[in-house]
């Protein structure tokens, strides 16, 4: 060990302060670091972009407030893209806390694009059951969701006249933070009903779903804040995710530095200890 200096003696709160500063400064003074678009995000964007106006797509919002920083930007970016392309959107939730979050994303976009509820979009709200609900939608969406989020019978909603089951939906975008979520949609909807499925997930969950992209079971995947920022870039509306990417990059660089620094100090101290041990024996 380099005498008088022990890496373990460094107060961990110094690292917390450095991380805090590394996040705060880029948020206050954005640097505009470039955001490259990865193939899974591009393929999802292309699939949505290729749909003709009027096509019905589905958004599955399955997350809760704790994963909002990562997933809410994805929901907003996808809805913006869909409304911009004049796609009609049917929204379902398998998580009970999701509907208000989806409403928060919808409200400003509906005003911005002048969309009409029940004609251009519908929020069917939450339904318990997880995979069973997905299975039910494969047979009958109206049977599985007899009422929308506001309690209106789906038979009174014009858009739902054209949606019988999942085969009437051109594409499903599943934004999920866990279970039930992307895996259940792949297992129940893709495998059984050949649904075209795209997904946005938290960064923690993303590595589990890349094999589905390679196998073609997912047409694209947005992984964490980076995925959301890439989609925002493609849609041409940089928002919260894009703003956060400068901080993300700086913190990653800082963590890489910490890892390298820790390893260098470890090996140097190990060698110093070995040299000191050799001297004491001689």
């Amino acid at each position, binding site marked *: 060990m380099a005498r008088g200096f022990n890496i373990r003696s460094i107060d961990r709160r110094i690292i917390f302060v450095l991380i805090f500063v590394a996040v705060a400064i880029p948020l*206050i003074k954005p640097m505009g670091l470039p955001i490259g678009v990865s193939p899974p995000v591009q393929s999802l964007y292309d699939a949505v972009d290729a749909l003709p106006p009027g096509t019905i797509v589905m958004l599955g919002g399955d997350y809760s407030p704790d994963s909002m920083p990562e997933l809410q930007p994805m929901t907003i970016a996808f809805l913006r893209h869909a409304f911009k392309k004049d796609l009609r959107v049917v929204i379902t939730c398998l998580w009970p806390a999701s509907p208000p979050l989806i409403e928060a994303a919808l409200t400003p976009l509906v005003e911005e694009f002048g969309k009409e509820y029940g004609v251009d979009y519908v929020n069917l709200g939450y339904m318990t059951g997880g995979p069973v609900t997905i299975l039910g939608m494969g047979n009958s969406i109206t049977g599985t969701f007899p009422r929308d989020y506001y309690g209106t019978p789906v038979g009174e909603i014009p858009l739902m006249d054209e949606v019988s089951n999942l085969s009437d939906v051109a594409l499903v975008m599943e934004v999920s933070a866990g279970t039930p979520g992307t895996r259940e949609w792949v297992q129940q909807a893709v495998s059984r009903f050949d649904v075209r499925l795209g997904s946005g997930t938290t960064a923690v969950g993303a590595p589990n779903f890349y094999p589905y992209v390679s196998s073609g079971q997912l047409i694209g995947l947005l992984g964490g804040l980076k995925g959301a920022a890439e989609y925002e870039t493609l849609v041409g509306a940089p928002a919260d995710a894009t703003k956060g990417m400068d901080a993300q990059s700086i913190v*990653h660089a800082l963590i890489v530095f910490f890892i390298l620094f820790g390893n260098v100090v470890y090996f140097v101290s190990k060698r110093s200890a070995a040299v000191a041990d050799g001297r004491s024996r001689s």
Partner: protein
Amino acid sequence: MSWLQEFFTGAPGTTTAVVWGTWVGALLTLCIYSFLYKDNPFYKFAESLFVGIGAAYWLAILYHNTLKPKLFVALFPGDSGEPVLWYRVFPGILAIFMLLRFFPKLSWLSRWALAFIVGMYAAVNLTGFAQADFVEQIYATMTTPLTGGGVLSFILNLSAVVGVVAVLLYFFFSKEHKGAMGVAAKIGILYLMVAFGASFGYTVMGRVSLLIGRMTFLLRDWLHVID
């Protein structure tokens, strides 16, 4: 509007409820982050508050989204004109069975409800899992190297196949990991290390994203120093 005025009253058009909500959220966020310095009463207060409110919140959400509409209203629609869904009485009975585990003499009945849940989910998930995570993944692994896309793509796809085989051999314990088997197992370890590294990297990104989310809330919604 001056910054100080905006700090206390919110942006123009902001309701009092939103201003109060933002202040409460900001102060509780600071209470939680104060744990990074050291354990303290502010952190303990915020933690206890979170646990209590969280439990109540989920109870209310589940009651209003599940129990009330799916059971109570379905069985007793009142004057709404909706038909009585009498068959919902069976899941209702199973739900009561679940609660009977608190009574030792009748706790065995809770196993019926559990057996129903386990059996149903096993049946629903089994075929979906077998198709999505087994058949499709094996098929994709076997066919991906042949999908074209140039020499580099072929090499990368082939490396994925090598990785799958090597990792499977690493987890094959009926033969000692020596010779060719040992080499394959070591290659498998390398692939596993890369997978763990990628997973750790994504986890770091996720956690940093949450911090960015909170910081954005503090700096934008509370302090109004960023747009």
